[in-house]
């Protein structure tokens, strides 16, 4: 009898053990990122530890690649059948992956998840990652581009600080007072490239494409004027250094060395400028006839072919909306979470420099997204090349944009 009972007990144990291990079988999901390494790997690992404590059956493995090579490696992983479960995407590349059906429609897991509330996200960021009515990514971070200015240089020249309602004419007037070539100081820097160009176009009331019929309007009068003025900062007004004048130094380096009184760049530079040997602040970027500012957002998406969509969903939900994640991000200066909740940003706003951090959120009122087409990188390179030619004096703005129109129409075929 005892042997019988022992046998039964052993059998019971043997049967429960696989059930227990099966139920707790840890699922490993791979998360591929470009923004974590190397400065914020610790922050990411902290978030993962919190997440894994809440979800003991999910294990997150991080894979990283530097920004430029990320866009080489990710397609290769997909082509080789080795796609990660979750990966980071920025807005321009999101469309590429979304349009090829490579991203999981997150509305399915969201619908079945009572704990999920889409309202926590900043609406513009949330909407940016929708494609043909499907939610294909959750916004993880956003950043804006501001006008940075060197207060010491302004004080020394007796120029009053930039105001939120400045136009570029105001900025150029101030820049002329601030430019002191004998001492190697330029008044202004606003990069002459694709992203600045579409923004200046919007600031001048123009656009690359007609919003109604989708025709290419990149050579309209407003666009040509915007380009002429942009290039004019260098060639006519003489307040901005050309690439040759910069000689390979980045605008960030020049600003830090006190060679630029005003610099249009992103809020990601706060960390680099924190130890600047002069006092500086930010302001909403000037406009032409209206304001338009950059809005850069990154999302995390789930690979459509992932073997573990439910676990991946838990991770993307946590990574984009949990309070712990937001706390860690703001505390370590690792980009801003795309959450529409001022309590998360109270700490952010209290950090200095710069003092005027409210301007970051003010500029969101004028935020625009880039014009995106299927052959995005080719369009970016084409516009970039043509803009360069105008700066070098090889073409006029009108000629360049007429050619841009032809080439973009080719790309749209």
């Amino acid at each position, binding site marked *: 009898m005892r042997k019988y009972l022992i046998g039964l007990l052993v059998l019971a144990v043997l049967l429960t053990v696989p059930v227990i291990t099966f139920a707790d079988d840890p699922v490993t999901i791979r998360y591929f990122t470009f923004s974590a390494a190397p400065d914020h790997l610790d922050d990411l690992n902290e978030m993962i530890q919190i997440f894994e404590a809440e979800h003991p059956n999910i294990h997150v493995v991080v894979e990283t690649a530097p920004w430029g090579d990320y*866009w*080489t490696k990710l*397609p*290769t992983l997909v082509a080789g059948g080795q796609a990660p479960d979750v990966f980071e995407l920025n807005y321009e590349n999101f469309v590429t992956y979304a349009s090829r059906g490579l991203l999981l429609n997150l509305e399915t897991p969201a619908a079945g998840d009572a704990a999920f509330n889409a309202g926590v996200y900043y609406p513009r960021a949330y909407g940016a990652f929708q494609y043909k009515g499907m939610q294909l990514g959750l916004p993880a971070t956003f950043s804006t581009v501001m006008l940075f200015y060197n207060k010491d240089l302004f004080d020394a020249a007796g120029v009053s600080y930039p105001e939120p309602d400045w136009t570029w004419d105001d900025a150029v007037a101030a820049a002329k007072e601030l430019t002191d070539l004998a001492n190697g100081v330029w008044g202004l820097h606003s990069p002459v490239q694709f992203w600045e160009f579409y923004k200046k176009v919007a600031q001048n009331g123009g656009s690359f494409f007609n919003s109604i019929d989708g025709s290419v309007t990149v050579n309209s009068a407003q666009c040509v004027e915007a380009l002429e003025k942009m290039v004019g900062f260098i060639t006519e007004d003489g307040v901005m250094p050309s*690439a*040759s004048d910069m000689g390979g130094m980045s605008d960030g380096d020049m600003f830090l060395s006190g060679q630029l009184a005003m610099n249009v760049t992103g809020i990601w530079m706060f960390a680099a400028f924190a130890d600047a040997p002069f006092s500086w602040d930010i302001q909403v970027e000037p406009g032409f006839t209206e304001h338009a500012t950059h809005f850069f957002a990154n999302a995390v998406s789930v690979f459509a072919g992932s073997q573990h969509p439910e676990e991946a969903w838990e991770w993307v939900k946590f990574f984009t909306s949990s309070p712990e994640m937001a706390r860690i991000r703001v505390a370590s200066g690792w980009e801003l979470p795309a959450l529409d909740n001022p309590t998360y940003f109270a700490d952010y706003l209290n950090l200095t420099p710069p003092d005027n951090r409210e301007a970051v959120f003010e500029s969101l009122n004028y935020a625009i997204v880039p014009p995106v087409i299927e052959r995005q*990188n*080719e369009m970016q390179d084409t516009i970039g*090349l043509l803009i360069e030619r105008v700066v070098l004096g090889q073409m006029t703005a009108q000629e360049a944009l007429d050619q841009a129109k032809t080439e973009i129409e080719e790309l749209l075929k």
Partner: protein
Amino acid sequence: MVGTKGFHKFLWVCLFLLPSLSGLLLFTGFPVISSLILSFHKWDLLSPARFVGLGNFREIAGSQQFWAALGHTIYFIVGYLPFVVAISLAVAVLLNQKLRGEVFYRAAFFTPVVSAWVAVALLWRWIFNPRFGLLNYALGLAGISGPSWLFDPAWAMPAVIITSIWKDIGFLTVMFLAGLQNIPTVYYEAAAIDGASSWRRFWQITLPLLSPTIFFALVISLINSFQVFDQVWIMTGGGPAGATSVLVERIVKNAFSYSRMGYASALSWVLFLFIFGVTFVQIRAQKRWVTYE
């Protein structure tokens, strides 16, 4: 003699060739054939490939960007190859003299070769800096106003060429040094006894006996310079205004930035035809000037 008859020889050939050949076929041959097949397709890596026949090649023939890149590549080769070979040869002969501290000199010349392009490009960007770079400073002392180098479409390629020559000298010097060491001293001794001048010794002994190495250096350098990429990518990104856009830069842009792997593969095969053609001519021509033992 053992190993000279038919089947026996075949076995020996197999033994010696098989390790290298099998690996080469698998890890290079297969990808190369794949890229040939891909050149007749459109493939963005993310969706299945689509057959387009000669479409890519037709696009290449009519592409202004391709012809410009081809021109820039040839410009690079013509400006780079003769100088890097000649200078490296001179340096190798120089370092072959019994100088004291030759270990230091050899290490010094090899340092640029092992340095990553990131660091080399940074340094040379300073040297070429239009305002306070070393080169324009030196030119200024001679009363010449230097150009904007990397920022001037006319001078960017010469700047890239100069940097490339500087970096690669050590590579070829090492090669030539090994070749020089291979020449039996007995020839030089005999020539010295006959009273030949050092210049004559160079032409009559050194060059001919070094010719297999020189041939190697020319062929390899040509194959490599047709595929010039890293320095252009890092120093100028193909600019300014596309002035330094070369073939492999176009290939990489198309393959990874524009997601046009099929088109990029087609470009690679057009490049291959050029390289193969030139190399073939070189090999045929070697009978005229290369002396083997």
